[in-house]
């Protein structure tokens, strides 16, 4: 499956940003998944999950101290 999926994990407690991302990566299979998070902790946790699932992750600041992660495979 290709296409763009957006996961908005801002404001969620551990480990929910990782769980939401995992569900999205599992259902996407490949393509691009974007994840919004609001803390550095969530950013690192989601990127660690992505790399363990063999997805390539990049991030940029998205204003208000949040981050937009782009996961690709």
């Amino acid at each position, binding site marked *: 499956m290709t296409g763009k999926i*957006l*996961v*908005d*994990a*801002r*404001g*969620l*407690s*551990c*480990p*929910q940003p*990782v*769980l*939401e991302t*995992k569900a999205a990566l599992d259902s996407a299979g490949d393509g691009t998944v974007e994840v919004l998070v*609001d*803390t*550095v*902790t969530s950013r*690192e*946790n989601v990127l*660690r*999950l992505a790399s*363990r699932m063999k997805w390539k992750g990049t991030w940029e600041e998205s204003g*208000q*101290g949040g981050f937009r992660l782009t996961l690709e495979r």
Partner: protein
Amino acid sequence: MLNRFLMSRFGPSLTGAVVGVLAPVLVFLGNPGNMGICVACFERDIAGALGLHRAAVVQYLRPEIAGFILGSLISALAYREYKPRGGSAPIVRFFLGLFAMIGALIFLGCPWRAYLRLSGGDLNAIWGLLGLATGIGIGIAFLWNGFNLGRSAPTAKGSGMALPFIAVLFLLLLIIAPQFGRDAAGLPTGPIFFSREGPGSMHAPAFIALGVGLLIGWMAQRSRFCTVGAIRDLFMLKDPHLFYGIITLVIAAVASNVILGQFKIGFAGQPVAHTNALWNFLGMLLSGLAFTLAGGCPGRQLIMSGEGDNDAAVFVMGMIVGAGIAHNFGFASGPKGPGPYVVAAFAVGMIFCLAVGFMNRGRVSA
């Protein structure tokens, strides 16, 4: 560079090793046995010092707690991670903290101390750790089924300073208290109470305890060290990097205890502990479930409070109030075993936590 290492997947391991060395050193310098660091016990001692309970043997303004909060705040400010946020079911988190504390005081320790008790040779901790893992397992079942307490949102910049402000106040009271609150005969009259005997009277020099708290607060903020997330992520995500922090903690603490002559293996006669296996298990089960639903262990809640997380600060206050209730209502255990109303306390706590788990399952994102 140290910061990069702390933020890598080895960060929790280094933090765990430092905790594993410094906690037995704090015991050596005066803290109660196997209680170099215990977030629940220390918050309970603070509740006692403030007169929220009158268990005369557990009253002291433990500076380690203030150290954790302020160490995390300093680190979060230095690395631009101070982010005031809140509004994710604060009242639910307050009571999760309250019942987490009640469970911890049935066992006599938080997860940090459960690992440290084991590392001192206290085999009763095995029942506690099995209970902790079981409670976390129940929490994981809720998480797999979409449990969440809703989103937090950014809050006013100053809101994250509330708990650090209180932490500074605790430190000031620690310094000032000996000069008031005693009658002519030297007996405590309040408003601040310090134990003259028992665990509350045993403490390392305050400036050393504060220093250790600041260091660990800073390291835990950088590395996201969490004694509940460790087991949760291992089971749930097959991600062991937090769990390695527990392994290094236990190895370092066993070694330190042996070197310092504090290692004593067995069930009976362990410091600040009882031998009732069932309630050691069930107490930590309740605690483990509450911590998992709230997103982290009591140490992690202090660290997140320092980062500006209002909801974590509310959880901490729930724990301190819960300590008052646990002792006033006869829920807390003592060296001889569980308190008289332990069954009621456990039942109410479990009903509350299970209800929270079942009733908060809406999906929050697309």
